[in-house]
């Protein structure tokens, strides 16, 4: 049985008579432990899809107009509030794009991780030890001392590690990383991606990486989905899609990644008229 099964999902915004079709009938599956990338430009609907997986997208304004989302056999869109909350964090956990604003500035990082553990793993006695271990796993040095730090006392890269630690603390079966490196410096980006890769190898947690950058996908994801204007236009094993992209848009996206050893005066601009 698939871990996650999305079928004909449609999410609209705006007036019903003239809706914005943010997600326009997409279907995909993820197996346990699988790493998949969802690629597309801003506004293609990939973040909306990610948030919809646990109904984090508030409705209204969003409207879930069609389809179903099944996680471990349970229909997320029809789950009662209580079970939904149990799913959030322990079933599906998130790492968001902007670590500096995604952490609550008035609580210590230790407290914010503790909240997640208290909620989903009440059986744990030594919570502090568990938090230290979580921070240690994501490569934060001297985690005992960092516990009582406030988010603003950490660098952007460190904040994102804390976010990842918080997500992992509840042992989720699926980690959704929504543009986890976009807000970070290039060198830090690499560190975070390396961390995610290491985590992928250590556990059998599935990872859904959401990105607009094909460059990140190549040596990370097993499979890739390409989203364009609310639809999935291409999907397949990463190597295959990269080697032989079928859709014009995929080709354009791949060409947007600057390559080493190639002289390129300008970045490619996507020619939408040619795609549609």
């Amino acid at each position: 049985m698939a871990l996650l099964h999305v079928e004909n999902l449609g999410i609209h915004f705006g007036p019903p008579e003239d809706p914005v079709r943010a997600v326009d009938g997409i279907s995909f599956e993820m197996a346990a432990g699988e790493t998949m990338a969802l690629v597309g430009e801003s506004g293609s609907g990939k973040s909306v899809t990610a948030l919809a997986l646990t109904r984090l997208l508030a409705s209204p304004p969003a409207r879930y107009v069609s389809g179903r989302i099944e996680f471990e056999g349970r229909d997320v869109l029809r789950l009662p509030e209580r079970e939904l909350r149990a799913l959030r964090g322990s079933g599906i956990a998130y790492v968001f794009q902007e670590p500096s604003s995604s952490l609550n500035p008035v609580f210590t990082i230790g407290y914010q991780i503790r909240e997640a553990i208290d909620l989903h793993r009440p059986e744990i006695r030594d919570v502090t030890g568990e938090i230290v271990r979580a921070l240690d796993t994501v490569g934060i040095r001297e985690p005992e001392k960092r516990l009582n730090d406030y988010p603003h006392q950490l660098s952007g890269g460190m904040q994102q590690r804390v976010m990842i630690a918080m997500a992992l603390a509840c042992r989720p079966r699926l980690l959704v990383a929504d543009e986890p490196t976009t807000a970070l410096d290039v060198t830090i980006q690499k560190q975070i991606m390396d961390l995610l890769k290491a985590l992928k190898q250590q556990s059998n947690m599935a990872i859904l990486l959401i990105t607009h950058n094909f460059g990140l996908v190549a040596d990370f994801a097993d499979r890739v989905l390409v989203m364009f204007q609310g639809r999935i236009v291409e999907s397949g094993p990463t190597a295959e899609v990269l080697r032989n992209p079928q859709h014009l848009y995929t080709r354009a996206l791949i060409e947007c990644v600057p390559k080493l050893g190639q002289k390129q005066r300008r970045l490619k601009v996507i020619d939408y008229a040619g795609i549609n």
Partner: protein
Amino acid sequence: MTTYLIRRILLLVPTLLGITLLTFLLVREAPGNIALMKGAGGENGSRAMTAEQREAMIKLYGLDKDPFTAYAEWIGRLTRLDLGDSWVDHRSVVAKIGERIGLTASLAGSALLISYLVAIPLGVIAAIKRGQVTDRAISFTVFVLYSIPSFAAALLLILLVAGGDYLNLLPMYGTNSINASEMGRFEWLWDRIQHMILPVICLTYGSLSYISRYARVSMLEALAQDFIRTARAKGLPERLVILHHALRNALIPIITIFALELPVLISGAVIIEEIFSLPGMGQLMFASLEARDNPTIMGITVFVSILTLLGYLLADILYVVVDPRIRYE
């Protein structure tokens, strides 16, 4: 933190000098003084002075010296808490303020406390129910309350519930009934509370509506932040997301605006104490203004403004305490 405190307190000095200088010059240079100095009474007889009073006034304001020497001497006396003697009953101004401050402080204090206790839940509810009927009803009510002058509200409340033609539920004037001295302790306390209900209501609702509007906006801002999404993604119940994660952030600006309410509350106390015949500092101020009791007027003005300044200081310190992002080292 200590360095910040020291710097912040040192910055008070020029402001303190400014406050005192302004008050001093205002009262000293008032045309009334000059006329009195020439020995001529005002248009009403009560304002003519005895030689003794004139002597005291010349000493108090240094009217025979240049303004700045006089100011320096006055400041010297101020640091020794010597604000001169009242012209009305020749008692020291400090003592007169001392016996009045308690009532005003308890009035303003309870008004501020009640404002916060009611305004924050109102603001939070309005923010959660944003755009719905509940929000609209709260926002509109608060808006109307904000526009009602406190003295008009006081008069109408007296008319309606305090012995007017309609209900006679609450006493109209004063701090206690005439027979208060014969009452037992609890009876006395209940009597005092009954006398304070209307004044506190009239003093409260203005601040209440201001703070609740502020709380609503602050809460809306907090709810729109990314970390709220993180809290939900963790699986926290909505109650905790709102009352813990959002409110904790929204409270920071809400708490620190209490200092801005201080001058407003004191202004309000002048009116409310006058209407309800409460012997507080506002009423003393009012009586002194009518009697042209310049030492008392000046004393109260300086006292209140320094108190407000300390309120601003407290607000700044509180801000540092409640917001972990701000650390002045």
